[in-house]
């Protein structure tokens, strides 16, 4: 268009303009008109748009079927509970001790040096953007059409938030998981979140009780293989675990037990755990605790606290829990940060500690030995990551019955808990009976301590709950690590650095040794 306007205007001028006119219009236009035409065709909006429409990834999908997302969420959850969360909480609860050179993370955790940057991945990638984002996607997709999936996802979500609250206290809940539309969600109080978890569990149960579901979970549900009864049982039993944390636990638990149709864990088959697979079957699907032991050799040992507790009672489970040293003795690693000793530069090479064993790593194909240093690779890696066991439920009952004043019934529950735990570890019946004969009687004034100490041993390898029990009851009596950067045992994790940087609503966390969860009294 410019050309024409210009031409009209220019032609009014003197004759030498003819030259220019000629130059531009005759010569160029004649010769390039056909190219220009091609050019325009190519550039025309429609063809260009189509040609450029290649921005859909061939490597991923925009929507995913429910079963695929459910497996992902469950395995991620099981993995998380055997990963960072397990290491933070089990070192603080002194089920494990970090050793090794200065700077090795597990050793620093043991010295109570848990930094805001240490928890970035756990909080962000593993839980909120991992398990929870997937569960939320399932709930959104399944609600209304596939209630069985929605129900399982809600129960898993309730369990996950219960763990997160126990780890971090106040958290984003009501404004959380809204996607990129709400990038700075507000934080809710820990007790308010707990209150909604009971409701969420009831909703989950209701979903599972629906008459039909478009899609029905099966083997994609790697925890209960589509057994909706077991999910309902978990939901009710989980409510008992949550209720245990309240001062008015007896009333709350009475109410839960009285719910119509309520069922509770009744056998080890009800255990809420994520199965992993043996290397010999398929590599790359092993229990993450086992994987850590292989990859981070000499950093994560059974703690002297749990080993000594079991040694004093000659606990038969030790054979499955720990590798023996010098024949049949079991030695736990001290929870000793020893910052003043020159031995901090000395890896624990000349001290022989028991390592985690079959119970945590799966069947062993070799003889149980404890090397001076280095790792043992003869395990299958197929041990499950245990998150909430039938044995634990028996100890919850014992504590409830004791609080209710029914000490005799409490003792029965205690013994049932010990039995379930020992059976889980494959202890032969005779040894179980012998142990119960010696340790199965509740003694006046030490009832709670006995219950929690037995629960502590039974929950060996279960993330978070032993630490929560200690925070709730002060049992077992843990001695803070020597020379830690905190003088007392931390009672909460720091908020992640990245979350603080990205969300101004993140509260301050001046101290990780302060009581920070509503039930931590």
């Amino acid at each position, binding site marked *: 268009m*410019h050309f024409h306007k210009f031409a009209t205007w*220019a032609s009014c001028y003197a004759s*030498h303009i*003819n030259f220019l006119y000629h130059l531009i219009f005759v*010569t160029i236009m004649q*010769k*390039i008109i056909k*190219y220009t035409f091609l050019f325009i065709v190519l*550039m025309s909006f429609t063809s260009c748009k189509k040609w*450029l*429409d*290649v921005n*859909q*990834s061939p*490597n*991923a999908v*925009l929507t995913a079927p429910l079963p695929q997302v*459910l497996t*992902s969420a469950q*395995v*991620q959850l099981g*993995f998380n509970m055997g990963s*960072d969360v397990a290491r933070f909480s089990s070192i603080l609860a002194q089920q494990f001790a970090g050793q090794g050179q*200065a*700077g*090795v993370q597990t050793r620093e955790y043991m010295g109570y040096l848990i*930094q805001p*940057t240490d928890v970035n991945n756990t909080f*962000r*990638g*593993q839980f*909120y*953007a*991992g398990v929870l984002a*997937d569960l*939320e*996607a399932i709930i959104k997709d399944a609600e209304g059409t596939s209630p069985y999936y929605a129900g399982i996802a809600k129960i898993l979500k309730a369990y996950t938030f219960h763990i997160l609250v126990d780890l971090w206290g106040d*958290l984003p809940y009501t404004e*959380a998981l809204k996607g*990129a539309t709400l990038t*700075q969600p507000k934080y809710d109080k820990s007790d308010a979140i707990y209150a909604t978890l009971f409701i969420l569990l009831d909703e989950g149960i209701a979903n599972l009780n629906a008459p039909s579901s478009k899609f029905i979970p099966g083997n*994609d549900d790697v925890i209960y293989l589509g057994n909706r009864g077991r999910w309902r049982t978990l939901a009710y039993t989980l409510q008992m675990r949550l209720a245990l944390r309240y001062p008015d636990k007896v009333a709350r638990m009475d109410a839960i037990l009285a719910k119509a149709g309520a069922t509770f864990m009744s056998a080890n088959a009800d255990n809420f755990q994520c199965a992993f697979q043996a290397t010999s079957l*398929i*590599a790359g699907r092993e229990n993450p605790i086992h994987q*850590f032991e292989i*990859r981070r*050799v000499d950093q994560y040992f059974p703690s002297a606290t749990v080993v000594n507790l079991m040694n004093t009672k000659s606990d038969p489970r030790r054979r499955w829990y720990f590798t023996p040293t010098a024949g049949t003795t079991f030695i736990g690693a001290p929870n000793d940060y020893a*910052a*003043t000793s020159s*031995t*901090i*530069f000395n*890896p624990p*090479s000349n001290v022989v500690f028991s390592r985690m064993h079959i119970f945590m790593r799966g069947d062993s194909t070799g003889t149980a030995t404890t090397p001076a*240093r*280095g790792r043992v*690779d003869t395990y299958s890696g197929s041990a499950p990551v245990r998150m909430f066991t039938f044995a634990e439920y028996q100890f919850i009952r014992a504590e409830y019955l004791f609080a209710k004043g029914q000490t005799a019934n409490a003792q029965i529950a205690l013994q049932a808990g010990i039995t379930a735990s020992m059976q889980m570890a494959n202890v032969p019946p005779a040894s179980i009976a012998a142990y119960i004969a010696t340790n199965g009687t509740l003694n006046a004034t030490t009832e709670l301590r006995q219950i929690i100490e037995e629960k502590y041993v039974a929950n060996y390898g279960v993330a978070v709950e032993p630490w929560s029990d200690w925070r709730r009851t002060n049992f077992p009596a843990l001695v803070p690590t020597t020379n830690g950067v905190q003088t007392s045992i931390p009672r909460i994790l720091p908020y*992640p650095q*990245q*979350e603080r940087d990205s969300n101004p609503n993140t509260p301050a966390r001046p101290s990780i040794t302060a009581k920070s969860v509503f039930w931590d009294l």
Partner: protein
Amino acid sequence: MKQKILYTLLLWCVSFGLAYAQRTVSGTVTDATTGEKLPGVSVFLKETTTGVATDTDGKFQLQVPNPTGDILVVSFIGYKVQEVTIGAEAQVDVALVTDASQLSEVIVTALGIEKEKKSLGISVTELKAADIQNVRATNVVNSLSAKVAGVRVQGSNGMVGSSSAIFIRGFTTFTGTNQPLFVVDGIPIDNGGGGNALQTGVSNSNRAIDINPDDIESMSILKGPAAAVLYGSRAGGGAILITTKKGKAGKLKIDYTGSYQVADVNRYPTYQNGYGQGVSGANNVGTNFSWGPAFGSQPTFANFMGQQELYQAYPDNIRGLFKQGSSLQNSISLSGGNDKGTFAFSYSNNIENGIMTNNRLNRNTFKISGTQQLTSKFSISTSVSYFNTFSKRTQQGNQLSNPMFRGWFLPRSINANNYPTSNPTTGAPNYWFGGEDNPLWTLENNLYNDEVNRFLGNVSMNYDITDWLTLNYKLGTDYGTTTINTYDAPGARGAASHNVLGVGAIGKRANQSLLTSSYLNLTFKKKLSENFSMYALVGQEINVERGINRLVLGSGVVIPGFSNVSNATTLNPTNSEIETRLIGVYADVQLSFRNYAFLNVTTRNDWSSTFAPDKRSYLYPSVSGSFVFTEAIDALKENNIISSGRIRGNIAKVGRVAPAYSTDTYFFGANPSDGFGPSITFPFNGSAGRTLGDVAGNPQLGPEFTATREIGTELKFLKNRISVDLGYFSTKSTNIILDVPIAAASGFTNLTRNAGELKSNGIELLINATPIKKENFSWDISLNWTRIRSIVQSLAPGVTIIPLGGFTSPQTRLEAGAPYGVIYGTTFFRHTDGRLILNPSGFPVVNGEIKRIGDPNPDWTAGITNTLTHKGFSLSFLIDIRKGGDIVSRNIGDLRRSGAAEETGDRTRTYNVAGVKGSATGAVLTDAGGNPIPNDIQLNSEQFWGSMFAFGTGESYIFDASWVRLREASLTYNLPKRWISKTKLSNIQIGVTGRNLLLWAPNVPHIDPEVNAQGSSNSQGLEFNALPQVRNMGFMLRISY
């Protein structure tokens, strides 16, 4: 609007009456010296617009007015302008004399367009073949080190095939690539790769390594967006144009170049040799440390294998892990042609053996090119290259399979070569004393090799519509396949390539990459009047990039050493594909006034497939100008002091595209993992597993822009004996595309968006001088000096930090208000006055929070090349200077912590850490008056070095990487012509050459600081158990026929 201005200008130009043709004059233009016919020479009738250009035979035909006495003005780049008065004759032949002051002043700019240097308002530096080839570097990027102002080359290590990063004018984007676009003969090629994983795998190549340096005729470095704007969205980091050798009309030419070089570690740590393996003065066969008993205190000790051996120092135990490397390069080329066409063929072979076992590169390159004048108006040229590069690579990074992970601080009483690497009976690995892989075992058993087969091809067609209007179409492609074979030996404790817990892995990877570019250009070139001439180009680009990756990973190796995936118990195949497309249209108009004032305007519009349809189209312009004041001002002409001078400047903007597939949110294959190595591979229990991505896609995503301003001057003095080129630039990138961290409580850890601002500015200085120039002797000095500051102005709203690379500590980061890529790490508690706070035992206390501990960016860099020539001899050496820029060195920390380093050797002295007394948790203790109490506790050597350089204490691992090094040196001798005159050879040159010959790094002990853990990436300044740099020396031979 722009068009109107342009044509108004045109009107002004055409201010003289038209000539009326009355007779024809024809002739031939030749080079006065060689007699070579010169095509493209402009022949004008003085003071008119009548003129033509000579054809490929140097012939012209021009209609001139009847009366004689008119003057023909004959001008050509590189030659003196000649005026010929026409008599009555019909044939006028002109022989042009070269103009020394103009020589090599024509350089290749964007889209391969040759322009007079003095006309450019942008910065382009051209390197000639000799600048690149005499150093015999395998990786063409390395031959740019310290040669060009504004260009920084950063090697990753000295292993054969390792990558080098190249940064032109600092950083222009946050997390996308800051590497320039590589263009070979007008077609963009892939220089990807070169990044190294932190905890697995080998040292990778950047793919420019496939290019045969002997094929290069010249390289143009287009600095900054203004120079590269015509290349559009891919050239935000500048561009490097490589022009390969073409045939020339004349006799058949054969050139041979051969060289042989040896390579050695250029710097070893210095060690103490008084104390052996142990801890606290006692033997400990399980430790890596050398805090054991003094040598001589006991005759023997029981080693980690339980055998008694002599307790003695092995001063050269580290050297025993290395061997001498070598490089043999042979390259031959044939070229020739006649007046209708030319051809060139070349073949090269390069066999390079590294300084460690199983590190090797074998490269074969073939290239054939030709040009043909099909009609007087239509010519075609084509070129096809084939590269075959085979490499064996060494494991690197923060992992036990890196042979030097524990190697650098081997206890002083251990000779690695004394122990069998595997059990002779069972074949199982013999683990090292700490239950870890023996470094020599990992070299022999964790194998990685790759083979690249790659074609570069292009065809270019030229049609001269008229003598001032040319249509050119160019189509080119870079297609390559890379096959990677990996074998992680069963029993490996290190991660090796696949991190499979020691069960062994076999990896078979096949990658394909395809880059296709098509250019249609219409070029207008005409002298509009005596005073004005114009050059204009309109064009269109179509670009497609495609990548396909396939991997079959078998884990669980059954028969050791048998590397076929059928030999694995578990198979995990994975694949991914990516494709992006782009269309660009552009225009480039240059007006020159009397050949001393130049104005250049470009504009480009891109449509990229990586944006949502409504965000696809974006336009960006540039304006540049150059003014040669010595030619404009009469008083300055023929001046004895100042020979020539000009000023230049530009303002430009360039757009950048988003990564593919960032406009949507996807469900990806599930793969739970933590930062410690454990991970779960899907399918799991029969389910494929899909997890919602952690990064939220964003359909609102638009292009990112880098704007730049630049001003410079170029002055020549004393008959061009001294020249100074001084420039200042500033760039500002906005709307930068990045994955911004958001509260993960939203369900996503990151959101892809446009955010933030990054500013760079810099000063570039180039001085060339010829202090001595005699008949038989000359001395040339070239100095380049660069100072660049790249500052992250802002990230996204509410975001102050984005991790760039590294670990939790140390880590490189983008931090608002800080230089690009600052280093963060663990620190010690300090009193408010800066003094260390020591715990009750006198040890420093590690602070929980990581802080900024360093800046990897140099304060300035410089290169000084001296060239001395005497008759046939030429001695050239390049000194490379880097001032400032920090590096975190894990090796130095390890050497000190472990008691292996020389400085830890005095075990009798005690150390008092300067600082104040504090609590175990780092609180300051005060005296009664409230004042801090100076620390008076003495530590022994082990306590001191062990705590000050404790594992992971980033603060004490940071060093100023300043260096002065003799980067290159070559002495060549051209045999006198009379010696070879009896042969049919035209030239024989012999030479000795070397790279990285001397190093002075005053603030970095033990290592060469030119290493980078993450290779060719934006994350710079991390050294994590790096493999060493090397020194190369050798000789070369060139024969020309």
